[in-house]
């Protein structure tokens, strides 16, 4: 009998490493969101000549990263 990887969080206090790893996952999702959508915003700015698309891109990236974090880690 094999245990599946990444068991859902148990209530007996044994998932110490999973918690820390979850925290780092959150940080890297946020950073990924900022970098991709900020990067897309930056490229669109250069192409279209506007100045505010970078900020919109950053905000959209953070918003999407929040949504993904909520979906993965918040509703289990």
């Amino acid at each position: 009998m094999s245990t599946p990887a990444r068991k859902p969080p148990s209530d007996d206090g044994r998932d110490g490493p999973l918690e820390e790893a979850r925290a780092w996952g959150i940080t890297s999702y946020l950073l990924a969101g900022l970098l991709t959508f900020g990067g897309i915003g930056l490229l669109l700015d250069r192409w279209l000549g506007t100045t505010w698309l970078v900020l919109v891109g950053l905000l959209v990236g953070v918003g999407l990263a929040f949504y993904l974090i909520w979906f993965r880690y918040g509703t289990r």
Partner: protein
Amino acid sequence: MSPLVLAAGGEGFTPPGPEDFWWPIVGSNTSNWTLTRPAVMVLLSVVLIGWFFLAATKRRSLVPGKLQFVGEGIYGFIREGIGRDLIGSKDFRRFLPLLFTQFTLILVNNVFGIIPFVQFPTMSRIGFPIGLTIITYLVFHAVGLRKKGVVGYLKDLVPPGLPSWIVPFIFLLEFVDKFITRPITLSLRLFANMFAGHLLLLVFILGAEHMILDLGPGFKVVGLLSAVLAVVMTFFELLVEVLQAYIFTLLTALYIGGALAEEH
């Protein structure tokens, strides 16, 4: 710090900076192929680890002696706490050599940062964390691709149950996360912790030395305080070093486990 020192009329003090991490031994100062001290230290650490574990397993008895006990303790910690929990008990054995090697290598090299005559954490030269991260990166992507195929692996990036209009954005986000951000944060975390820790110790120790030896009596008291703080920060550095080795290995195991997971 220098403007204050100059204002007090003391000698110039160059604060420690990134140039203090460059320590060539053989070769010129600027070429890309000089043999530097960290490179020699990493080789030495490999020899040390190999010698230790060979000595620990030379006479294997059921009731372990001291060396074998320590060796078994470290191995058991990685195998149970990190390997079995995060990769699942079916196929964690394949990755145990990788995890074990990473943990011991990073641990020994980090602790080099506070051993009295050595005192240089080799992971503070960014090439070493990058090398370890490249291995982790290749392993966890290759494992996932081989298990699920390219299309299945990409499809597995997106968690199920999302409204379908948002899936392309989330896919882009997850793709950038898994292929770009994760290796960057993995290597940068180890590098930045070791770099900052070593720089902190350098500032306290060199500042204490400068203040006690070269400046007036008021500064000598502050220099003494700085030396005490250097001792405190050394213990803190030990904690950070062990923790960083543990976290690196933990995240490697987590990524491999995530690539092997069949459900979400």
